[in-house]
């Protein structure tokens, strides 16, 4: 091989390597689901001890997947609203699926045992799943608690229709002027497009395990 070509190849390779390093180290840009993406199913342990997958819900039209947890003050503020969403929409085919993904070494309040206790105390009418490996939160791109993904079934696919907050007033439900999740599901049930498909909100960051952090 001629020297010139080899130099070029080395340069190209270094450039490739450099961009790879740059992309992976600074690539904290959200890579999770956006509206229109197809979501992957998961299989996680419920507080009842049983494993739960979205595929188990044969008659559901879709899901309200809520990344939440026990300890976070924002998750606590929204807890009753999550319960209300399930009561409002499960019977129309959009059940709530709550998932806790926090590293319990960082946040012992979020342990599986504490999840069981909380679900019982508040009579959760929906599964509360423990994402111990944090794989589901990573796949979805969840960053906060609470962080909601509204999914709609399209044949065998689960299409992401909404990502973000529950409403626009965490502290005082009565002051909310936008009910993002309820509006999204209502639109889907009426066969209408979802008007607001993505929002952001303040919340507790998901507590990642050290090895898998960012």
């Amino acid at each position, binding site marked *: 091989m001629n020297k010139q070509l080899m130099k070029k190849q080395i340069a190209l390779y270094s450039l490739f390597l450099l961009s790879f390093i740059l992309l992976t180290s600074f690539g*904290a*840009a*959200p890579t999770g689901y956006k509206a229109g993406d197809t979501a992957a199913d998961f299989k996680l342990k419920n507080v009842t001890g049983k494993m739960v997958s979205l595929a188990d819900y044969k008659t559901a039209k879709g899901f309200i997947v809520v990344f939440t947890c026990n300890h976070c*003050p924002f998750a606590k503020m929204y807890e009753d609203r999550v319960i209300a969403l399930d009561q409002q929409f499960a019977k129309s085919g959009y059940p709530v699926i709550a998932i806790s993904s926090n590293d319990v070494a960082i*946040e012992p309040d979020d342990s599986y045992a504490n999840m069981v206790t909380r679900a019982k105390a508040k009579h959760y009418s929906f599964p509360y799943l423990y994402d111990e490996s944090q794989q589901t939160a990573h796949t979805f791109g969840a*960053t*906060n608690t609470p962080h909601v993904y509204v999914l709609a079934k399209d044949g065998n696919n689960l299409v992401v229709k909404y990502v*973000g*907050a529950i409403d*626009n*007033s*965490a*502290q*005082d439900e009565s*002051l909310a*002027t*936008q009910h993002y999740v309820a509006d999204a599901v209502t639109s889907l049930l009426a066969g209408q497009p979802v008007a607001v498909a993505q*929002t*952001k*909100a*303040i*919340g*507790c*960051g*998901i*507590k990642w395990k050290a090895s898998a*952090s*960012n």
Partner: protein
Amino acid sequence: MVNPNLQKYRTRVFAALAFLMLLPITSASAQRVRTAPVRVIKFDQLKAMIDAQTDTTYIFNFWATWCAPCVKEFPNFQKISKRYQSKKVRVIFVSLDFVKDLKKKLTPFVKEHAVTNDVYLLDEPDYNTWIDRVDSGWEGNLPSTLIINNATGKRKIYPIEFTEAELESALKEFIP
């Protein structure tokens, strides 16, 4: 022989005098760590600070007293702020506590931690209207920190809990 009443009187006068003498010392030592009052602001006021055309590097730490990792990293910002005082670096704490908790939680926290940096309570509960205007790469998770220098045009959001060393090495990318 000393009148016992007089003795009692002397003791009282002495105690009162001692108290009066100590008073200026204690108030002076309390004044030494002068904590600025927490100011409640709206987003436009924060935006004006973020966009200020200056060669100072600003560290905006978004936090809240209810956020445990925020409370944990808080002293690291105070340390870095003191260490880089002469280097045109300013730390600004932007609290997302609720206004109702200002007197109950935020002000006592600021006093207890002897905070000499500016502390603002951002009173904007409709989060979706402004999070992207801080940085589109921020998902709203706390703690998060924006480091910005408008003279060089360099800015970055760090949606993480900083250790002192991590914060210092992040800051070093911004200052010559």
